[in-house]
């Protein structure tokens, strides 16, 4: 009676699981690791399949043993316990047999893992080197050979969009069929960069540089995220890699180079900028770099990120404002922007902040002021 009732309950609950399972089966789902699209992730994927297969076999054996025991050795079926089972030959030697078998399985996994590990950690000559800097909460990609810099911010989308939290304004562009080396670092806290399809993860540590590499085999857009808790925006810093053919990559590279040269020339010229020009430029810089914390309305998040609108710094003397933007506030999420933005960008964003929301200072900060303040 009792057993039947518990069995009934179990069956009901199992049916619920079954229904949920069926609902899932309708959609297009991945049950396995994301399919690899580079040489190195292919190697890792094969290793993953090896360990998964071994794990499955072990689970099947263990489950079968338990089910057989539950079937065969029941008190209710009149099973007589064998009080000397632990004293027969098996009982005396199991402590040797079991570890030897497990050790055999272990070593076969470890040997193939070790060789894959060597290729993940290899430092062969790379065709392209990209420095990846994590900061709260965006990625900055620098192509060290070309002086190109790409700042990659979350693209704001509605939670119903298929690419919600998966898309950025500027992805990392990489060529297929070339060895790419990544140097990872961080400007504030720990971050972790990677995209399971093309490149295994490595952690970004402020003050230290980590290295990993890939060689992408298929063109396409690959998406990862930050994989180390980095504070309030941790869920909101996707890492998107756009892999294109080497020809297209060269085109993109040339275009970026000329844009970068233009921007640098503009920033270092002695031109005196008008307030409106600076505010317009500053708004762009603000949206890219500052809005994640200080918000579009300049009010920040109470208790977490200070407001700029009507603040003592952004509505006070210019020198104090420049100082805070260039050097940041140590020990908080406010980064030192001096090394990250050029004089013109800092001048523009400071001007924008001083003339937006409740701030009406009327200042137009010039690039040369920024240079002097550095």
């Amino acid at each position, binding site marked *: 009676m*009792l057993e039947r*009732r518990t069995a009934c*309950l179990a069956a009901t*609950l199992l049916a619920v*699981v079954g229904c*949920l399972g069926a609902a*899932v089966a309708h959609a297009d*789902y*991945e*049950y396995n690791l994301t399919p690899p699209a580079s040489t190195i992730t292919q190697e*890792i994927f094969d290793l*993953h399949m090896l*360990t998964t297969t071994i794990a499955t076999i072990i*689970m099947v054996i*263990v489950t079968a*043993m*338990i089910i057989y*025991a*539950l079937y065969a050795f*029941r*008190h209710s079926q009149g099973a007589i*316990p064998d009080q000397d089972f*632990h004293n027969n030959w*098996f009982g005396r030697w*199991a*402590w040797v047999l*079991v*570890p030897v078998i*497990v050790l055999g399985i*272990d070593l076969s*996994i*470890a040997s193939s*893992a070790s060789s894959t*590990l060597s290729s*993940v950690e290899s430092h062969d000559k790379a065709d392209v080197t990209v420095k990846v800097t994590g900061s709260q909460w965006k990625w900055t990609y620098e192509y060290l050979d070309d002086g190109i810099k790409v700042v990659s911010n979350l693209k704001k989308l509605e*939670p119903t*969009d*298929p690419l*919600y*939290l*998966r898309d950025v304004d500027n992805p990392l562009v990489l060529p297929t069929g070339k060895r790419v080396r990544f140097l990872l670092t961080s400007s504030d*806290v*720990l971050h*972790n960069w*990677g995209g399971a399809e093309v490149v295994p*993860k490595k*952690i970004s*540590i*402020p*003050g230290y540089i*980590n290295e990993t590499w890939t060689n992408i085999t298929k063109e396409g857009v690959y998406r990862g*995220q930050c994989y180390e*808790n980095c*504070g*309030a*925006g*941790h*869920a909101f810093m996707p890492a998107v890699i756009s892999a294109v053919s080497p020809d297209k990559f060269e085109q993109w590279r040339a275009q970026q180079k000329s844009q970068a040269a233009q921007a640098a020339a503009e920033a270092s010229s002695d031109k005196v900028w008008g307030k409106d020009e600076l505010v317009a430029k500053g708004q762009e810089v603000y949206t890219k770099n500052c809005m994640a914390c200080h918000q579009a309305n300049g009010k920040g998040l109470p*208790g977490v990120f200070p407001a700029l609108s009507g603040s003592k710094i952004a509505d006070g003397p210019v020198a104090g404002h420049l100082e805070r933007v260039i050097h940041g506030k140590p*020990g908080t999420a406010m980064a030192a922007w001096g090394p990250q933005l050029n004089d013109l960008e800092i001048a523009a964003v400071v001007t924008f902040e001083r003339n937006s929301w409740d701030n009406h200072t009327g200042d137009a900060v010039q690039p040369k002021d920024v240079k002097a303040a550095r």
Partner: protein
Amino acid sequence: MSGAVTAHDDHHDHGPPKGWQRWLYSTNHKDIGTMYLFFSLFMLFFGGAMAMYIRAELFMPGVQLASPNFYNNMVTDHALVMVFGMVMPAAAGMANWMIPMMIGAPDMALPRLNNLSFWLLPAAALMLVLSIVAPYIFPNGGTPVNTGWTLLPPLSKQVGIGMDFTIFAIHLLGVSSILASINIVTTILNMRAPGMTLMKMPLFVWSWFFTGLLLIAVMPVLAGAVTMLLFDRHFGTSFFDAAGGGDPILFQHLFWFFGHPEVYVLLLPSIGVLGLVIPTFSRKPLFGYKSLVWGMAFLAALGMVVWAHHQYTIGMSLAATNYFMIGTILISIPVGLMLLNFIFTMWRGSMTFETPMLFGIAIILMFSFAGVTGVMLAVVPADMQYHDTMFVVAHFHYALIPGAVFGLYAGVFYWLPKWTGHMYDERLGKIFFWWTTISFNITFFPQHFLGLAGMPRRIVDYSVQYTDFNMISSIGGFLFGLSHLLFLYIIIKTIRGGEKAPAKPWEGAQIGTAGLEWTLPSPPPFHSFTEAPVVR
């Protein structure tokens, strides 16, 4: 060992003091054990409520309930409360209750120390609560503790005053568990009844012996690490700041030097409970007692030297990474040996399926599963794909809920008749078992798929593709949480009354073990053994 105990000391004669004094000044191992158990029961619901919030927030994409910082604060404190507030005190409570009775000791070796190590816990819990509310009640309270239980700098340096309370809470919890461990190890070494040799001790006693040693070895390292963090935050040192010549990764090494053995601290007592439950309901002696004891010793020793497998992606040298990988994979040897020994104990036995046994069987099955996903995670290149995804979350919940928590449930049902003198309601116990086990699997099994698809852990919001599995997981989570109300009801019902329990409520309880706990009536008298029992 000393000779026969006579009722010669005056203060052993009278019963417990009345009212609150009985509890506040208690030096009685059973009373302190009871307080430990109730404390952990309370913390189970406290930490469980946080888990319910987490699953509610993750029910669908978008940030619905509270800010990302609050979410990560709950993730942090869910872990701290469950690890330090729930599992460890529950295991310590069982140790307090059962170890003196098993080895035939009149009480713990250091009864006043025992009182102190319990009463530090409520203070620590208060500190933890303060760390949660501090950002809201103090002016300039700063950011909530949004780091996760690993408290990794530099993020933990950005956190407000809540982090200082968390650090103090960890100090208190650390002192409490070190003192409790010293007490338990001393009791086991010095207080055994004549004839109770080490290799005759019930497995639960052995498991706590190794747990105690592990805690004494690693808890100070955590205390040191969080103290260094406190210095970095307030006194201008730079242990963990590259700008001052320090290394943020050092904290990870220190934390996991504690953190990995801590996993075995949580697991071993439950393995010990299994070592009693499985033979009892199989009605035959434990298979491979000696290899289980040595296996636990090996597990504890190996567990101390493989910590860096929690941080494979930090960029260690190839040699160091290989060492940690192979060391970690080797853990499967003692764990495999233990689980197979339990299966062989059931083999050719005569099993009945009371609630503790049901939990025991479920543990063997589900903990094996955690073991094989553990081997998958131990493989470094593959771990670079799984690292910090929900796959890890699924893995360690499979390890810790069946491995530690279900073991404690088995212990609770196994010993409730001894503790209260009443049999629990077997029908409700079985319902509770099926309810928790099934809802646990609905909660955590889909998280493996989420992790493989790349969903990071500790995120408040996720993209649309992860929605369905998260919904299933949340529904399972709510059912799992709800089942614990039944647990509470069963416990209260058993305390209040029920069928009278005999001294030995389980037919097979004393097969193949020298443990003395069943020779006492249920419930046992206030002072267990007035005359030292002799084990032959």
